[in-house]
């Protein structure tokens, strides 16, 4: 066990994977000499050389396209997209190629690329350094979507991703890259996909969250406990595959469901969670489902603090959920 920040845990996870398996390599903009703009790949060039830590030209299309080619040939590339807001030039490669290669070839061509990318608000990044674009990818059949919320999960889920036979989009909550530290198991620590984590037990209301919203949910739950409201906080960890059983179990237990994410509400990931609950746990619901999310505008700059869901907004929403029904 070592006490690490989330970004250090990512770094150790990458190093671990690369040490174990010579087919693992890292590529992206500024990942080599510069060690990544968030230092997630710091030190890797020195340890593994320019052949395995590849500084690329400025083209996300090229990064993902060449990573796919590498994976088809048998390497295990981990591509970095510098900010999730810049993943769109690679969207065609991800949606048309990466996600569909196995299917369209009848299983002949698996395509195990991991795409790592920092996402989310809270760093005063405005429209283009703050987006949470998980819903686009969760809707895309053929790609797994993973978001850790702790240093231990960051390493453990990343190692699972690198060894997974399918494409994985690995979203890193950059807002908590350094603001939280935690014990991280040394060595080949792996956290399985599709298994949510109950961060805090509670009997009154379920809060479903992931990534940088998990600490917000926990703080809110602590405040709510003072009001004798016991909130259960569930960290989904992997959006695809979703641990539907855990989602249904907590809602069936508490009868109330509050969904929390940073992305805009309309057609966001929370909509799917709400839909699943409305389809499969309707009769357990004591009050209407509530979503606490970013607003349906582009991400602002000056008003970021009001755009991002925070503890106050969540507490208010949970109180509302308790009062209803």
């Amino acid at each position: 066990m070592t006490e690490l920040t989330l970004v250090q845990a990512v770094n150790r996870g990458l190093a671990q994977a690369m040490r174990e398996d010579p087919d693992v390599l890292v590529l992206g903009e500024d990942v080599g000499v510069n060690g990544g703009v968030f230092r997630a790949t710091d030190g890797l060039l020195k340890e593994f050389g320019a052949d395995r830590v590849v500084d690329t030209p400025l083209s996300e299309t090229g990064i993902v396209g060449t990573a796919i080619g590498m994976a088809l040939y048998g390497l295990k590339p981990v591509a970095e997209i510098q900010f999730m807001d810049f993943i769109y030039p690679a969207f065609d490669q991800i949606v048309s190629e990466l996600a569909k290669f196995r299917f369209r070839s009848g299983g002949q061509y698996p395509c195990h690329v991991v795409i790592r990318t920092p996402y989310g608000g809270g760093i005063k990044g405005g429209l283009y350094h703050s987006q949470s674009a998980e819903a686009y990818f969760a809707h895309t059949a053929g790609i797994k979507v993973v978001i850790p919320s702790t240093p231990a999960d960051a390493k453990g889920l990343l190692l699972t991703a690198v060894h997974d036979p399918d494409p994985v989009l690995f979203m890193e909550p950059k807002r908590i890259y350094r603001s939280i530290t935690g014990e991280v198991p040394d060595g080949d620590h792996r956290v399985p996909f599709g298994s949510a984590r109950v961060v805090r037990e509670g009997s009154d209301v379920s809060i479903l969250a992931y990534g940088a919203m998990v600490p917000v949910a926990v703080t809110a739950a602590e405040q709510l406990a003072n009001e004798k409201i016991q909130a259960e906080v569930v960290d989904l960890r992997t959006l695809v595959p979703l641990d539907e059983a855990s989602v249904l179990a907590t809602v069936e237990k508490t009868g109330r469901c509050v969904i929390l994410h940073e992305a805009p509400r309309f057609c966001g990931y929370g909509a799917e969670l709400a839909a699943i609950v409305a389809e499969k746990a309707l009769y357990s619901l004591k009050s209407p489902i509530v979503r606490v999310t970013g607003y349906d505008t582009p991400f602002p700059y000056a008003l970021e603090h009001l755009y991002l869901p925070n503890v106050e907004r969540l507490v208010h929403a949970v109180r509302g959920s308790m009062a209803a029904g």
Partner: protein
Amino acid sequence: MAKSAGAPAGEMLPSTDGIPPADLLRAYATMVLARTVDERCLTLQRQGRIGFYVPMQGQEAAQVGCAWALRPEDWIFPAYRELAVALVRGITVRTLLDQFIGSAADESKGRQMPNHYGYRRFNYVTASSPVGTQISHAVGAAMAARRKGDAIVTVTFFGDGTTSSNDFHAGLNFAGVFRAPTIFFCQNNQWAISMPRDRQTRSSTLAEKAVAYGFPGVVVDGSDVNAVYRAVVAARERALAGEGPTLIEAQVYRLGPHSTSDDPRRYRTDEELAAWKEKDPLARLKHELRESGLLDDAADARIWETAKEAVAAAVKEAEAQPPVDPMTLFDDTFATRTPQLEAERTEFGELLRQGVLHP
């Protein structure tokens, strides 16, 4: 006849020569076979026996010349019009027809439209429809092969229109920077559906676009199977010597429609077509073979006859194959089904059993 195809054997010849004389007849036969499959498939489509088809007539010499210069270990990243490349690789007509029909015998499980095939055992990567996306894959695979110590090249095929795509730019730039052992084989067939080459881009040739990426681009007469072969052999040697990629522009003409959904009379003249028919690559090679005494009319007729019979037999076999098993729909989205897919599959099976859905 299927055996007439297949990768060339023996040592690679010095790059100044064309296809080895001993292979030339087989190369010609492969072009004839490609033409035969092509014409047959246009008919099958008209008759509703296959759903769609992308013909390649006029591009046989470019494709055979290129593919003949490669080794079976070299990886191919095709677009959707490379029938003759597939045949040179040794992929049988029957195998291709299984894909066109989309039966249970299709090695890709009937997942894609006709012409979008691929076979790992032939190092022929499964095509998609979006143009150009394969280009950067070829670059990545070449980098991977080099890293693994495999002395192979990757070759990617695309059309004149596709030089405008994002992946053309990204792929060629990455290849230049990383000196990837990749051959970019552009079949400039003068049209991108209804868009003529001159309105696709103002560069004077497509080959000269390589300047932007710091490696050589060459133009070759795509009706001349030997010229194409020589260009590809040279590019392959360069790549394996660590000197990096080459862009080859093979100038050809699409004699047929863009696809069976297209009516080329809407955008091009009969005169243009007629002029290019004069340069039919099959006629050209036949003429050369006759001049050098390798072929006479009787032998030529036999080659055509053999091709026709082989195709007829393959069609018959392929049409006798059973349809795709519905339950396979839920395979291969992921290596193993997620709980969500498992649930959808169960429900789907139930609908089939209850007769709500009909296979």
